[in-house]
């Protein structure tokens, strides 16, 4: 990989009250890379993901996305907080997929996907609907365009949620345990969509418990524990031959 990383996380700290969620985390993600973050619950992996698109604000440190500092404007040698509208604009470069899907229940699948491009980007509805249908086809749900989320299975909802995020044409996709809330037989369809997305060259950061997916798709795997990155490397290194004792303990607990 060459050139400037798409995401650059530098020494990020985050506390929730007395809980130290992130302890000086630094991480670079190159354009086109698929990065999987693994670790026990409470290790800070979801918090890190949410810091990248500013659903959580960091205490200190810096997160750069596509060369732009998130959350603050640099003026001389001081940092000024961005307005809400500017933060909303910065979020356009990242798409997010949530553990609980979070589709808008009062809108059909198609309306969910069209909502952002029409309301936020102000693009013509017609054009957006055509794109949305293409996206639904891509995630294998062309026939569900007019279904409300309540009438879709968890796996179908999550695939619509991926299409909704892609409709904004993001440079980076964030996945927060996208298959954890799914019945086991529905996980495969969602992972298949994510694999196709990875092959298409999308930059992806995936917080996951699916070690099989990480092994197959990830260019790099990061193991986090107690708010720090413990180990980082290729999937075969981290998952197949971990150097750190804490990684070994986690993997043996997960795989047993």
């Amino acid at each position, binding site marked *: 990989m060459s050139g400037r990383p798409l995401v650059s996380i530098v020494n990020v700290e985050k506390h929730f009250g007395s809980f130290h969620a992130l302890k000086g985390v630094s991480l670079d993600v190159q354009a086109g890379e698929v990065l999987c973050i693994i670790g026990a619950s409470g290790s800070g992996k979801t918090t890190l993901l949410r810091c990248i698109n500013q659903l959580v604000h960091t205490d200190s440190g810096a997160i750069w996305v596509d060369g732009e500092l998130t959350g603050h404007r640099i003026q001389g040698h001081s940092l000024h907080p961005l307005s*809400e*509208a500017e933060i909303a604009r910065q*979020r356009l470069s*990242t798409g997010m997929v*949530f553990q609980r899907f979070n589709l808008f229940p*009062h809108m059909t699948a198609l309306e969910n996907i069209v909502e952002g491009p029409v309301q*936020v980007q102000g693009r013509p509805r017609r054009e957006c609907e055509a794109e949305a249908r293409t996206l639904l086809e891509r995630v294998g749900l062309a026939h569900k365009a007019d279904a*409300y989320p*309540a009438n879709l299975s968890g796996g179908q909802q999550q695939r619509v949620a991926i299409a909704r995020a892609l409709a904004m044409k993001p440079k980076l996709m964030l996945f927060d345990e996208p298959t954890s809330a799914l019945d086991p037989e529905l996980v495969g369809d969602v992972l298949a969509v994510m694999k196709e997305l990875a092959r298409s060259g999308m930059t992806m950061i995936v917080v996951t418990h699916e070690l099989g997916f990480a092994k197959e798709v990830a260019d790099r795997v990061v193991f986090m524990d107690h708010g720090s990155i413990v180990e980082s490397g290729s999937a075969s290194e981290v998952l197949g031959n971990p150097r750190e004792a804490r990684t070994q303990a986690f993997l043996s607990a997960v795989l047993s």
Partner: protein
Amino acid sequence: MTQPVQARSALPDISGYRLVPERHWGRWAAVALIALLLAGLARAFAVGDIEWTYVGQFLTAPAIMQGLVNTIWMSIAAMALGITLGVGTAVMRMSPNPVLQGVAMGYTWLFRGTPIILQLLLWFNLALVFPKLGWGDYSLRTVDVMTPMLAALLGLGINQGAYTSEVVRAGMLSVDTGQYEAAKSIGMTRLTALRRIVFPQAMRVIIPPLGNEFIGMVKLTSLASVIQFAEILHNAQNIYYANSRVIELLIVAAIWYLVIVSILTPAQMLLERRFSRGAGGSR
């Protein structure tokens, strides 16, 4: 070959038996008793000292009709003002800005903390505090501006806003935080997220209590009779001051209140159905 799921047992085969519906003897007894009580009540009023012909005569009298119109439009106008203020206050109360939060809390505290009839009297007597409204050449005598109608609208609407804000806030709180996050993640600002994502979902929770408040408002307008607003009860009273048919005219007013409320109840159901899109498993 697969094993049978169930072994043949010694229990009797009941598949051909007739299903006997449950008899509700208690309910029939209660209906008979209620019918008897209602008949007795109807008879008591029929032979009591009420001239029913007066009720029929005044039911559509011009003054009563004018009062009915005033009651209806004042209910709608005060409720519209109340909802506008209530939504604004709820949004301010839920904002991250502490100044806006404080203003919203102060407003709710002030107008929920004093009786509505006192507020109506204060608005109506505003001229005692401020004889003139406006600046310099652009001022008007307060008594000319603060008519019974305007005093009633301000008193009822601003008071309603304080209550409606809590109803709206409860509705906003009922929407999952994941919805706000999903809205933010596709680049929405807070106000766009509220308008497009949160409020349409909150409506399901807001409408039943708001329908309740609207029905309450129809009856609350009768309080404006104390500041001479010509709503239905005020006009009924004016008639019975002249002809002493007190009970007959109160019954006339009661009939019209019941008619309005009877129309509002199914209207509320239609509105609830409109906002339940996507909820549950309906297609």
